[in-house]
């Protein structure tokens, strides 16, 4: 009996020889490499040979191949000498093909035992080869597979597929079984009963050898004891993802909120397992590392991503210590395969449009009429005369009688296109990836937003010697982004403030027209078109990251790595805000300036992150039962930033706008910052019979963000795993492939508290003019507490992983409990203490508890139809446990003990008052309240409606997040969908256009149809009034205005077609795919005014709208 399986090709008969010769050859090869081998760009697998021999020895043939390729042969001379002489010719032929012919004719067998070391052995002399079989191996989606091992079952006979996925093998007879196997695919057995075999290999989703990227290394998935979600780069393919943060949407345990689709500024907010702490975005954001280096998701090309690991529990993240409290995102970029060189092009083009925009009243007469109604309802007098309203009503739309819909003026469809080109490949020693990408995205806010991105990514890994490997990557990204001058917030605010009486366009003489009808509150001339036509803000960012690592195997199992990286960015912003005068559209007289003085501002920022890390990794298997893997490391990181800003006024005209041209009011500012982090970290993994798993991770971090004595923090974690499926009692249960129970506990920290919070600062910049000259001044503006320490998050996690039904059904369940204590938060001080901002102190405790469940089912029906279903669901409850008895109130929200962070804290309402009598018998918030106004509930029954009647009415962080994906493929077609949703979260839109007539702004059409009047007593909205003049009565923060912002969104749907057939080959293509893609195309939500995916806590709608994008494109692989 022979050992089955392709991995025994070296065979019993070879073993002793190989062992001996390997030693000799290894040394030779090593010397060669140390001597002259650089980057072998062409891999051994592709190497071709040309020769002609007749009646020669095998030895000479091998020598010739050695001379023409990087291959080296090992063999037993005696064995070769016994063979008869042969004749063979080859012309530019792949060496493997030659070897296959040789093997067939001589009965010898060969095997590539190392990347370019070929062992030659004798075949079993009893085997006779009679039936010749050819065939082709490909994946379910039609990609041909190279390097698949094809063996005759029960023998040592075998071969591998070539670069076109083809193989030929001679077997005993038609009853022989062929075994096809390749890493990452399910092994398949087929009878050799036809002359040509079409073989399709299924991807092995639960491959035992599948590895997961973890902190400072990789780990076999089956051995993972922490909680990690993985995003496969393939699922991102062809999606119009403009910022890699969007790629995490729908991932289990991760809340991703993309507020708005402004090109170049559409990164999503990411919260892993809830809001762990109090105090600002920076403090809540996860740590992101790209190829092991801290980097931003914005600057990594989504197309270059091989995989993303989201580390969620303390066991996985503790190795990142003080930056890990909000989870860690590890992005790995693509690297070529050893066995083939490919050139890929992928590109798409399409169109974006706003998902939701408010629907404003765009008829001037209606606007004025309703403004008057509001004034009367508030107890005032009509502002616009009947004559004026009639004049508008009776005149056709013109510059003088405009009826402008500013949403239609400012927003429209916008083009998007992206192109990516990739060269990837490798040889036995070297693998590389070189890719270039280009994104060109216009903004749906026309004329003032848009972005272009250029990206380059080079990644190389090469084995200098058997023990010495170097790898490196360079990422370069350039963004050119257009914003409105003064920023998107100001521009959106103005757009939402526009009213229909404001004319659009220009006057005949080229002047900007200003309305001749003034709306109170519309103080400045604010035509937002001027941003598009006269002003600008451009932002250019260059980012560059170089990352070099050297790996050295000191002794067998002990590996040292030194990694150095630099991540450098520069940012240049130019802002031009020119002097523009508006003219009364009727009289032509100068009316109001849009800007009275031209101002040019230029800002430069640089940042530089240097990191130097050493790790020492020891891996050893003792006997067959004990596997130990240990890692120790040390890292130093320094982060420097600086900015310089200058502005100037006094421009002679608006034609020239460089800083050099201006003359007045020069202003400059700038500063530098330094952060440093020094860390020691380590990991121990122990596995007993691959069944009982133990792991400990820890990190000892020193941070410049804390005072001496408090700089250092220690963050440990432990985890255990039990692979039940390896136990005897489950090994016979056929439907269970893998079952693992795991649990972890650990502590992690957060250092994002701002710099020098421990220094009682005397700040500068508090100047005052004396005698006509400005003098600098100083002031203490914040009281600081030098004793502040690390805040610590303690997290417990339990998980169950399963792979069932022949790997068709996979899934996991997780429960976690995360407590953050000693939360660093700015304490409020009574104003009487110098009106100082309060000190940052370790005062609060916050809990996040929840569970996650994920399920995946993959199967096929017949040979043409396959499908995949996936779903995940996460529930998180957040509670402030201790806030030292304080409450933090901000914009209708409260953070208090016993409630989730930042809960909506508003008045309770009970519909609308219907009659004067009802008003008279009810406590009212002011004496102006009348029928049609909101009825507030006197919750504390003190007869007065005031702040004491507020209650916690909603969340600003969703309790539920979920995602599911459904994919089908039928023959050459495939359809994939990604759905994503959130539940139990609320928004409170207010302010311009969200509420009517805010300080002169307009109103939405629903007020015309749905607001209370005596004739429409069951209306949804109260009687019309002006938001800023009738605030208490109708626009107080109340549950009346709280909207449920839950949504379910078809995030992405993609239909693709893969061409097959001979023409691909004629064109040198291995893949040609066309696809159509739609992003954000369908949304189910109750929110009507604006997209539910928005800045949740913002009480305005002055935000860039979200966009839906429809694209089509192709993928080509050469």
């Amino acid at each position, binding site marked *: 009996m022979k050992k089955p399986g392709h991995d025994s090709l070296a065979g019993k008969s070879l073993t002793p020889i190989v062992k001996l010769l390997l030693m000799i050859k290894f040394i030779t090869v090593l010397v060669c490499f140390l001597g002259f081998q650089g980057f072998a760009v062409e891999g051994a697998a592709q190497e071709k040979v040309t020769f002609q021999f007749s009646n020669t020895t095998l030895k000479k043939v091998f020598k010739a191949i050695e001379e023409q390729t990087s291959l080296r042969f090992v063999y037993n001379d005696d064995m070769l000498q016994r063979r008869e002489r042969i004749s063979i010719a080859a012309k530019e032929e792949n060496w493997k093909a030659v070897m296959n012919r040789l093997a067939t004719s001589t009965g010898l067998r060969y095997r590539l035992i190392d990347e370019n070391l070929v062992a030659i052995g004798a075949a079993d002399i009893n085997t006779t080869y009679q039936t010749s079989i050819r065939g082709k191996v490909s994946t379910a989606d039609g990609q041909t597979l190279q390097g698949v091992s094809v063996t005759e079952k029960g023998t040592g006979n075998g071969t591998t597929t070539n670069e076109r996925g083809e193989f030929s093998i001679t077997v005993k007879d038609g009853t022989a079984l062929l075994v096809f196997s390749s890493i990452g695919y399910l092994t398949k057995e087929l009878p050799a009963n036809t002359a040509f075999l079409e073989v399709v290999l299924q991807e092995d989703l639960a491959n035992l050898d599948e590895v997961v990227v973890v902190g400072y290394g990789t780990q076999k998935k089956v051995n993972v004891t922490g909680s990690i979600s993985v995003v496969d780069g393939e699922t991102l393919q062809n999606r119009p993802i403009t910022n890699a943060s969007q790629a995490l949407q729908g991932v289990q345990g991760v809340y991703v909120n993309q507020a708005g689709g402004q090109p170049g500024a559409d990164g999503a907010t990411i919260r892993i397992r809830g809001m762990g702490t109090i105090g600002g975005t920076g403090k809540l954001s996860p740590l992101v590392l790209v190829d092991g280096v801290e980097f931003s998701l914005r600057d990594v090309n989504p197309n270059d991503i091989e995989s993303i690991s989201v580390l969620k529990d303390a066991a996985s993240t503790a190795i990142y210590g003080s930056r890990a409290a909000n989870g860690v995102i590890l992005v790995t970029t693509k690297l070529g395969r050893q066995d083939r060189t490919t050139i890929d092009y992928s590109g798409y083009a399409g169109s974006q449009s706003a998902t939701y925009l408010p629907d404003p009243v765009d008829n001037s007469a209606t606007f004025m009429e309703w403004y008057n109604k509001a004034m009367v309802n508030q*107890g005032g007098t009509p502002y616009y005369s009947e004559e004026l309203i009639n004049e508008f009503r009776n005149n056709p739309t013109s510059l003088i009688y405009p009826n402008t819909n500013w949403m239609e003026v400012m927003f429209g469809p916008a083009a998007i296109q992206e192109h990516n080109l990739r060269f990837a490949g490798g040889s036995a020693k070297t693998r590389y990836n070189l890719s270039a990408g280009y994104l060109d995205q216009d903004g749906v806010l026309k004329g003032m937003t848009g972005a272009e991105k250029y990206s380059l990514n080079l990644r190389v890994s090469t084995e200098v010697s058997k023990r*010495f490997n170097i790898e490196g990557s360079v990422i370069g990204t350039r963004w050119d982004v257009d914003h409105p001058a003064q920023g998107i917030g100001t521009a959106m605010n103005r757009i939402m403030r526009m009213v229909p009486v404001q004319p659009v366009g220009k006057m005949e003489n080229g002047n900007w027209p200003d309305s001749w009808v*003034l709306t*109170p*509150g519309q*103080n*400045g001339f604010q035509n937002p078109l001027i941003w598009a036509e006269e002003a600008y803000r451009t932002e250019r960012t260059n980012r560059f990251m170089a990352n070099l690592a050297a790996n050295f195997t000191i002794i067998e199992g002990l590996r040292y790595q030194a990694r150095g990286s630099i991540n450098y960015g520069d940012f240049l912003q130019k802002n031009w805000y020119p002097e523009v005068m508006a003219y009364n559209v009727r009289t032509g007289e100068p009316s*109001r300036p849009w800007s*009275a*003085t031209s101002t040019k501002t230029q800002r430069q920022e640089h940042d530089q992150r240097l990191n*130097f890390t*050493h790790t020492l990794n020891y891996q050893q298997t003792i006997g067959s039962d004990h596997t130990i893997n240990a890692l120790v490391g*040390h890292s*130093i990181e*320094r982060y420097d930033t600086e900015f310089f800003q200058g502005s100037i*006024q006094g421009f002679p005209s608006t034609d020239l706008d460089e800083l050099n041209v201006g003359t007045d*009011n020069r*202003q400059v500012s700038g*500063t*530098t910052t330094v952060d*440093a982090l*020094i860390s020691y970290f380590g990991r121990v993994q122990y596995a007993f019979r691959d069944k009982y798993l133990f792991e400990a991770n820890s990190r000892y971090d020193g*941070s*410049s963000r804390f005072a*001496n004595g408090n*700089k250092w923090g220690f963050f440990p974690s432990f985890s255990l795993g039990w692979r039940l499926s390896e136990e005897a009692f489950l090994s016979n249960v056929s439907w269970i492939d893998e079952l693992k129970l795991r649990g972890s506990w650990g502590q992690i920290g957060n250092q994002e508290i701002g*710099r020098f919070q421990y*220094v*009682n*600062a*005397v700040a*500068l910049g*508090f*100047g*005052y*003019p*004396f*005698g*006509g000259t*400005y*003098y*600098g*001044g*100083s*002031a*203490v503006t914040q*009281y600081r507490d030098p004793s502040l320490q690390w805040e610590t998050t303690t997290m417990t996690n339990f998980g169950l992983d399963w792979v069932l039904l022949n790997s068709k059904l996979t899934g996991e369940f997780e429960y976690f409990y995360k407590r953050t204590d000693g939360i660093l938060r700015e304490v409020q*001080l*009574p*104003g*009487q*203490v*110098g*009106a*100082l901002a309060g*000190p940052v102190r370790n005062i609060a405790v916050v809990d996040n508890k929840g569970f996650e469940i994920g399920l995946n089912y993959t199967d096929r029906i017949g040979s043409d139809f396959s499908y995949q279903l996936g779903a995940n669901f996460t529930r998180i409850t957040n509670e402030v446990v201790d806030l030292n008895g304080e409450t933090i*109130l901000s914009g209708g929200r409260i953070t208090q003990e016993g409630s989730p962070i930042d809960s909506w804290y508003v008045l309770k309402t009970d519909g609308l008052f219907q009659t004067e009598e009802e008003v008279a018998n009810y406590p009212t918030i002011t004496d102006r309240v009348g029928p049609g106004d909101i009825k507030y509930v006197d919750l504390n029954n003190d007869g007065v409606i*005031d702040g*004491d009647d507020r209650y916690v009415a909603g969340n600003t962080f969703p309790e539920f997040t979920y995602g599911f994906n459904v994919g089908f493929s039928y023959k050459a077609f495939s359809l994939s969908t990604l759905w994503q949703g959130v539940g139990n979260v609320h928004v409170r839109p207010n302010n311009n256009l969200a509420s009517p007539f805010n300080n002169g702004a307009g109103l939405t059409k629903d007020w015309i149809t749905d607001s209370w009047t005596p004739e429409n007593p069951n209306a949804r909205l109260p009687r019309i009034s002006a938001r800023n003049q009738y*605030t208490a009565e109708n626009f107080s923060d109340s549950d009346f205005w709280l909207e449920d912002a839950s949504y379910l969104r078809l995030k992405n749907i993609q239909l693709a077609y893969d061409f097959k057939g001979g023409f691909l080959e004629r064109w040198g293509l291995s893949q040609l795919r066309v696809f159509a893609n739609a992003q954000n195309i369908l949304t189910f939500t109750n929110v009507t005014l604006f997209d539910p995916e928005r800045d949740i806590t913002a009480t305005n709608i002055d935000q860039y709208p979200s966009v839906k994008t429809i694209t089509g494109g192709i993928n080509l692989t050469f």
Partner: protein
Amino acid sequence: MTMKNFRYILAALLTWTMAACHSLLETEPTDFYSQDTYWQTSEQALDALTGCYQALTHNDLYNAQTPFMFEAMSPNAFNYDNQRAANDFARGVHSATTLGMNDAMWNGCYRGIGRCNAVIERVPAISMDETLKARIVAEAKFLRAFYYHRLNTLFHGVPLLLAEPNPDEQGSQPRNTYDEVLAQVVRDLDEAAAVLPVAYAGADDGRATKGAALALKARALLQDLDYAGTVAAAEAVFGLDHYELFPDYNGIFRKANQGNKEVIFDIRFKAPEVTNQYDIIMAQYSTQAPVQGLVDAYQMIDGRSIEESDLYDPQNPYENRDPRFKQSIVYIGAPWRNRTATAADLHQTGYTFWKFTEYNATTPGTLVNSDCNYLEIRYADVLLMYAEALNELSGPTDAVYEAVNAIRTRPSVDMPELPAGLSKEAMREAIRLERRIELAGEGSYFYDIRRWGTIEEEMNGPIHDYQGNVIQNRSFNAERDYLWPIPFTEIDLNPALEQNPNY
């Protein structure tokens, strides 16, 4: 590379990284000082003092729309957009949970007080020129008194904190009494007046002077109805023989005349470093729009009211009025910004003020960031305080007449002198009207009517626009509204603070 070499390199790298780099963690701030190392030099003392002045320019006090809200909370003007809840205060519908002007004043003043306290506590220990040191402390004392006077007037009896800010000691301190705070204000002003110079050379122009300290003392004592003290303080101002009325009434407010002899204390701005929005507020926002009641209060040039005078023509109501009218108020038809003001321009009441702005009859544009100064105390105010106090003390003496007439006969005003032989009561009314007119738009009338008690009538009832339309109704609860509510957020943070009565 041999194994041996490699080991050396490895050892060297590890040693270097572990030993040398811990100093990396020792970062030092590069754009601010630490309290521990500050307070060493006279320059630092001066910078810290500048910070005390700078607190005046914060949005809470003299920037944004805040200073004008006082006028809009008086019968003189109307604010439509309820910024800082000023309209709620004006209408008397504010409550214990109203946060607006009360919160701005509380924090604005304590911000300044904290900085002044640090200077007063720290500067004496610096070794520097003693004369300069004394002046710096005296300036800080003036400013501290300025801030406490404001708080004591609006809230009565606030926590009296005199040491450098320290939350542990000061955060729970309850309110002191009105008298304790007033006594400290007077003490600080006396100590400041003893040291401060009468005037400064050019580069220091704008700092607190002896005259400013004395004038503020007069204001504080008059607010307390201490007429004798007021008279004495005002006379001390006269005794400096430094101040005089600026001949051009409207010109007092112009940047070109900054530091003229009528100005006793002003809040200064300078573009581009310290700017305000006064110009655009007056020109476009109508944040404090004069109401018809104020316009009607202006006399005719014959010194009679519009009801009494034959000169009044309802068809041309703006003609033949006290010349201060056209120098203070823009009306429909007035030459304005190189054209004629229209109803659309003056969209709230048909009027706007012509003070604290850059614009004049010929500048077309509006400045978004202007740098007009705010005149807080001017000589005319001292003359009128003196007249008011002296009339209360000893009736309409010659000195009273002289003070009021000086103002009425200013060259650009040229109003008839007050008729001789007025009774004390008639003189009181005359002085009150004179204050209202002379200081219209300057935020003074809000305090004046509270002091006089006339606020109970004046802030009860409707106000009107130029066409006589009612803009809004106002009410004043005499049991409650003389004092503002302590911001409830402050009581939350320091429960020892007691709320004012009836809130």
